[in-house]
């Protein structure tokens, strides 16, 4: 864990929440963005010398905004920070030893220990989801999925696992792999999801990999679509990797059930009205004339020779789209299988 490292560095330089967050994400491949954000905030609290509640909340507020600003896509992250802030406030409002009247050091110790418990639970939630989701993978069915969602991977693997459940399900998987072309900085990288493909194949699950352009063609052979999500928004829609929306539209058009697998800590208080209403900036559509391309090339040449002048060079592999709730059949979460409209209910329960 990154905790000891940062503890050492702390006296010399001020705590850098952004660096900690990025370190955490890199150090543990199983870590999701909201959890990393919460962990970073917990570390921040361990380091900060704040002694009053308002000071703590203020610090939290500031670092959260800072963190959100410095990360290009803060949707998943804000789910974590919001949740943590909410949890902190409710804990502090509770009467008794840990309430506003109590000893602040005790409160802090309690908070930190509970936060760790929270993080552990969040990691366990993946197994819980796999338990709920198993039923959606039927014997003899074909599942279409995409992306590198760890929850989807764990669900499929558990369904294929003979030891885990009552009996293994025999199913096939069509895996949509996004072209690695977008990832220019790392040309050798294999498409996200290959790891899952290998793991499934190792378990004896027949897996077909298709490019994104073949989704409509292949969907006729699939019985069910299961995707992961970066964030589940208030109206029950999801923010997910680019390409999920089109799969959702196609699944709806073909009448295939479209399930989303997501932990409940990914529920985020955002209400997008459409694709272009997401609280992030991404330049997916970038109009250019030949003139623009040439001038861009000239600017690049002296400094960045290796950068290929590919037309897609601006395309960000991390870009996301929004899948509206009416395309989603159900959300499989650790608090049960929910309809999209039940998400807002869950969110309201957390917030009020």
């Amino acid at each position, binding site marked *: 864990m990154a905790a000891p490292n940062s503890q050492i560095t702390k006296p010399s330089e001020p705590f850098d929440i952004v660096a900690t967050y990025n370190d955490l994400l890199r150090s543990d491949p199983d870590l999701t963005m909201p959890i990393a954000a919460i962990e970073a905030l917990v570390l921040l609290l361990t380091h900060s010398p704040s002694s009053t509640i308002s000071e703590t909340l203020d610090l939290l507020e500031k670092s959260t905004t800072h963190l959100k600003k410095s990360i290009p896509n803060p949707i998943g992250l804000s789910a974590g920070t919001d949740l943590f802030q909410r949890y902190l406030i409710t804990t502090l409002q509770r009467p008794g030893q840990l309430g506003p009247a109590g000893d602040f050091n005790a409160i802090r110790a309690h908070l930190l220990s509970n936060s760790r418990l929270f993080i552990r639970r969040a990691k366990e939630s993946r197994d819980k989801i796999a338990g709920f989701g198993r039923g959606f993978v039927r014997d003899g069915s074909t599942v279409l999925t995409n992306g590198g969602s760890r929850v989807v991977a764990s669900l499929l693997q558990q369904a294929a696992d003979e030891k885990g459940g009552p009996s293994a399900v025999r199913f096939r998987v069509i895996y949509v792999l996004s072209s690695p072309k977008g990832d220019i900085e790392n040309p050798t990288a294999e498409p996200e999801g290959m790891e899952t493909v290998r793991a499934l194949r190792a378990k004896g699950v027949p897996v077909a990999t298709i490019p994104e352009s073949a989704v409509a063609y292949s969907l006729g052979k699939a019985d069910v679509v299961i995707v992961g999500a970066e964030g589940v928004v*208030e*109206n*029950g829609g999801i923010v997910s990797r680019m390409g999920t929306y089109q799969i959702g539209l196609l699944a709806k058009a073909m009448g295939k059930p479209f399930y989303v697998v997501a932990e409940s800590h990914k529920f985020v*208080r955002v*209400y997008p*009205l*459409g694709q272009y*209403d997401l609280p992030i900036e991404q330049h997916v559509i970038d109009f250019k004339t030949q003139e623009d391309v040439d001038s861009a090339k000239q600017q690049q040449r002296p400094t960045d020779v290796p950068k290929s002048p590919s037309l897609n060079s601006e395309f960000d592999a991390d870009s996301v789209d929004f899948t509206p*709730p009416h395309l989603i059949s159900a959300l499989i979460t650790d608090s049960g299988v929910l309809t999209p*409209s039940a998400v*807002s*209910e869950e969110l*309201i329960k957390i*917030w*009020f």
Partner: protein
Amino acid sequence: MATPADPSLNTTSSPPAAPTPAPASEPPAAMEAPSQAQAPKAPKAPKPAKPAKQAPKDKPAASAPADAQGDEKLSPAELKKKAKAEKAARRAREKAEREQGAPGGGQGPNTPAGKKGGSGDAGAPAAGSAAKGQKQIPRRGSAQAVPQAEEVKKKKENKNVAVFGHLYGQQRRNTVAGAGKEVHPAVLALGLQMRDYVVCGSSARCVATLLAFKRVIEAYTTPKGTSLARHLTTHLSHQITYLSTCRPLSISQGNAIRALKLAISSIDPSVPEAQAKTTLCEFIDSFIREKITVADQVIAGSAAQKIKDGDVVVTFAGSSIVKQTLLTAFKQGKKFRVSIIDSRPLFEGKNLARTLANAGLEVQYSLISGLSHAVKDATKVFLGAHAMTSNGRLYSRVGTALVAMSAKERAGGVEIPVIVCCETVKFTDRVALDSIVVNEIADADELVLTQPPHQLTDLPDPAAAAQPEPKKGGKSAPSNPTPESAPKSSDSPLADWRDTPNLQLLNLLYDATPAEYVDMVVTEMGSLPPSAVPIVHRMSTNL
């Protein structure tokens, strides 16, 4: 059906002539509009209809209820005259009226014929005993009405639209006469203001009601032998009954009243009266602040975030919260255009248009008939609400559903998000499947009375004719020039629709927009999908 329909057609076009005081002017008046081409024949055709109409008119002084019948078909200008004559007549027969519970004469005017006939029979014995509760009599036909009403009943058909028959209920109150003596003057005034749409809009009515009730509570003293918690509730319910006879209560009013009654009943009887009254007044103040004033600010703030540069915002009628939202967004420096859709007969959008234009926004104003055009370049729709029902439907000014649907169903385009701004005090646990079961019917005469725009082809008023005469005379020569001697109000071809057979007017106030057409409900508790309305309602009432 063809033959009976013809005279009815004629009669519909003839009415402008019917109420005209000077018969000589009739034929020219009918000729003035080309659409009334058959009008020259009309004066003959409506004759059979006329007696029914004229009958009550001929004997205005004979009996007060007869006046009442006449009033129904008359314009406001004439109504005033009638009222004066009626008043004089009533004074003269004051004694007799007292015996028969005659304030009914004043109340009766708007009672529809069918109802009057029915209730007139029931009213007869009631009027016989003068001791009968005063409040009831005014709304029913008085004893005098009985012979008259029955006579009219034979000739008149029911003017209530059958599908909405259950909504007609009591006729709206026209005057404070006959209100119970318990009703506070502030409430008396408010009732009439609500009836006249001076206080209009769900939130405004809710706030006004609470403020009036605050004055009621301030002026209240507990009678001996009862406790405040017990008696004040019944005292308030007199006020509430009065208000609801002026105009049916809105959902927000109902919710506020429920909260107030709960607060009253939870007052400890041992608390001194002065203190209890202060507590209640504070409760009212904080209710208004929390549920409406601050809530509106929060909603305007979060809804304004949804407005982006370059947006074209379509809104319907005049919602105060939408106005606040648009002004907030404008103050934040956003560049957007507003397209206001309005409708008859209330024209609530006019005020909104003026306010926004004065504030510096770019405003386009059109009536709902121009909706499809306005929706063409729209990017967002903002709507106010009268209520949100538990199945997520939006219950709002009639026409809202049309706007929401055309925004969502716009053919060949990207669908436009429909955003509803609504305080949680307007949430209800009722369910609306359509706008038929629950709705409010306003006076159908509102549809009839319009001020027609000044016509160039009209001859100017004889009084003001002097200067513009040569110009206008030349202009209007090709079309049929007609002396405008008929009063303005009688211009409407529907003016005496009550006497026109086979004609019913319907003036609905609300409609229900299905939840699928609403993308987002902005409340003070956050933005929700319409499906979350019952959850939030449950939570906000439990809090």
